[in-house]
């Protein structure tokens, strides 16, 4: 057998990089959040002072609930749409299915900045394609991003659009893992398509579906780009969700004290989701 030293030398470089970029900053960030921060410099230990200041900030509660609405709508819609599409594509046969799959993952593969920018230009800009078309059809005065609920609706729509491809691929992998004999046996026993779907397919997709829900939740509660490029958080603060809030606190208003304490709290929330992810990640197709 190899010595302990050799084994460790195989994993050490990778862990050195991960420690520097992922693990150490988390610990340093927590320690940093316990200080009063002026102009980016720690000026005195204040314990949980930043947290107290943050939690009494009246805007935070609204931002939190907005994030919950945004994330749950995005996750639910993405999963439901991807599930329907996956079952449909799975029945298409290999070549046609693959092409359909590639068309669906296109928005996922393009960067969020560019995808959101192009979406805005085609569908939401007042001299863009869709609004001009609407005007020709007699709908004048369409300003989809000016209304608070409309803006949130579009933010959710763009986020769903961007993520369907990912969810689709994971569900398709899950579907391919279901032995065909199961469906055939059920069909011989006289089960309908719907019965096969609801009592065989769906239960066997439990793990990939849960995995998707966790990963999509994590990605929705951490997305800065989509609101930044689509709405800038507006109108007012109608689409200001937590990740954008923490980004603005740090890099727009340079309030690193409240930004770091908010980041630490968000990180703790993420860890709960990550623990759920770890339980499911051993799932193999």
């Amino acid at each position, binding site marked *: 057998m190899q010595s*302990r030293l*050799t*084994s460790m030398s*195989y*994993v050490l*470089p*990778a862990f050195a*990089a*991960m420690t*520097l*970029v992922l693990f*150490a*900053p988390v610990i*340093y*960030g927590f320690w940093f959040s316990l200080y009063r921060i002026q102009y980016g410099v720690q000026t005195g230990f204040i314990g949980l002072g930043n947290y107290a200041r943050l939690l009494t900030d009246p805007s935070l509660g609204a931002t939190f609930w907005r994030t919950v609405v945004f994330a749950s709508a995005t996750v639910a819609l993405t999963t439901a*749409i991807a599930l*329907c599409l996956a*079952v*449909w594509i*799975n*029945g298409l*046969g290999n070549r046609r299915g693959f092409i359909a799959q590639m*068309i669906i*993952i*296109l928005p996922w593969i*393009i*960067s*969020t900045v*560019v*995808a959101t920018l192009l979406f805005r230009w*085609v*569908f939401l800009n007042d001299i863009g*394609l869709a609004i*001009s078309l609407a005007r020709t059809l007699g709908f004048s005065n369409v300003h989809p991003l000016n209304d608070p609920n409309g803006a949130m609706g579009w933010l959710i729509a763009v986020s769903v*659009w961007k993520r369907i491809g990912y*969810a689709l*691929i*994971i569900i398709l992998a899950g579907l391919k893992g*279901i032995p*065909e004999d199961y469906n*055939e046996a059920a069909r011989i026993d006289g089960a*309908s*398509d719907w019965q096969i779907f609801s009592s*065989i*397919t769906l239960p066997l997709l439990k793990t*990939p579906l849960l995995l998707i829900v966790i*990963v999509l939740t*994590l*990605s929705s509660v*951490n997305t*800065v*780009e989509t609101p*930044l*490029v689509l709405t800038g958080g507006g109108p007012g603060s109608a689409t200001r969700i937590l990740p954008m809030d923490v980004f603005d606190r740090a*890099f727009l208003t340079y309030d690193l004290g409240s930004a*770091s304490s908010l980041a*630490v709290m*968000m990180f703790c929330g*993420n860890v709960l989701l990550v623990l759920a*992810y770890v339980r499911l990640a051993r799932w193999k197709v």
Partner: protein
Amino acid sequence: MTSSIDAAAPSRRTRARRVKLPPAWAIAVSLLFALLCVVNLLPVIWGILTSLKSQEDLFRYPPTLLDFTPTLENYERVITSGFLGTLQVTILYACGTVLATLALALPAAYAFDRFEFPLRSTLLLLVVASIPLSLGAAALLIPNYIFFTRLGLTNAWFTLPLIYTANQLPMAIWIVKGTLETIPRELDEAALIDGSDHFGILWRIILPLSRPALGAAGVLAFVGSWNEFVVSSVMVDNPALRPVQPAIYNFIGYFGREWGPLTAAAMMGIVPILLIFILLGRQIVSGLTRGSVKG
């Protein structure tokens, strides 16, 4: 043609036996798919057309589809503002990230799969837990920024490739380890008896056999670093070091409502991704499936 092959090979799974949607649902879902085709392809097509329009054609109402004289003036404006340098830097970042990620992930995955060492399962757990966190968690951004500023590691040529490599590593290790599990250990043992050491096994046996996994992990690492925006927008502010996504974002402020140059920059920014998508689509799908992550 396909049907005759299917008939000749009865063991092959035919379409008829797959789960199918009830007819009403099938129609609804195909309509949904048709809608998605429009919503997915139109922005790219309309983006290309917009980028080729002159200022007058752009503001014409109603917008013209093909009835305009294509011009490259938008591309010229974007290029004169230094965009080619931006693309060059981004390619270097992405390639550096891919090489470093694979070079660090392969030995780590090998050790996790083949060796027993102290803390092995704890470290592996840490890798798996880092997969979803490392890929764009806003919560990690602030601590990372503060820490890197404190150490003076921001705004250097190595800042972004270093961060991207660390971010891509957990998933790459996980994908490669998944493949190593399927390579029989007898091969290692035979090589050991023949006098090879572990490095020789890794280089001559494991590396060639794990090429598909390395390809899948590499493609995802390339796409991930090419598309990354948030980290690069806060970690570097020297324009010479700025990669493509923050550059395009800055154009939004710089060009304002001038969608011509804006879409020209966006189109130049997605060319490499579209090429990879067309040439290596299968690797992307397989990477996603193996890694099961990144929403």
